[in-house]
């Protein structure tokens, strides 16, 4: 069975500090991977997607970047956090030939 793990679960960071959020998928080779962001009380917005290792496409940047260093790993990062980066970050995957999207448990970020 496929599992998706996100880390950290939650974090409080200062404005201007760096950020790295991680996501790993186990039990599935070459998945399509996605990062979504949700403002508190808001809807979800796709940020990035990746079809293969080393390839990342940006949908909405929000002064963030993403990388896929391994087949099963997707990283979201920034060198300088803004207050507007606060929210809930969700990683998702789907089979490259399928259509259902499955989400991880999310990482909650508070920027102060």
């Amino acid at each position: 069975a496929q599992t998706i793990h996100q880390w950290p679960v939650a974090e409080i960071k200062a404005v201007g500090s760096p950020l790295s959020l991680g996501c790993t998928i186990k039990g599935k080779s070459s998945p399509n991977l996605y990062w979504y962001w949700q403002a508190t009380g808001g809807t979800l917005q796709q940020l990035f997607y990746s079809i293969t290792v080393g390839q990342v496409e940006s949908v909405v940047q929000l002064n963030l970047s993403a990388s896929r260093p391994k087949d099963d790993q997707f990283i979201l990062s920034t060198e300088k956090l803004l207050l507007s980066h606060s929210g809930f970050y969700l990683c998702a995957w789907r089979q490259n030939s399928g259509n259902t999207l499955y989400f991880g448990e999310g990482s909650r970020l508070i920027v102060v």
Partner: protein
Amino acid sequence: GDQVEQSPSALSLHEGTGSALRCNFTTTMRAVQWFQQNSRGSLINLFYLASGTKENGRLKSTFNSKESYSTLHIRDAQLEDSGTYFCAANMNYNQGKLIFGQGTKLSIKP
């Protein structure tokens, strides 16, 4: 403008009753997914539909691509059904981009 319009934004039901949520699409969508977001923020997959109707327990969902809408029916509501429900639609099968509705906050009262 918004491509996925979800209604209602909030809904309160007594246990044992039912209702329907609806998403209207302003452009052609190829598929729709429905999710329940619990208090921890986890998104639980409820349905994926490319067309037609699916039923799972007390939930039933329909997607009509020609008339550009999808519905989620809940019957015999239980306390654990509380949460925020989102529809999300695929404009195309590539990229996997889902466009989410604004969500429906569902509260179930004893």
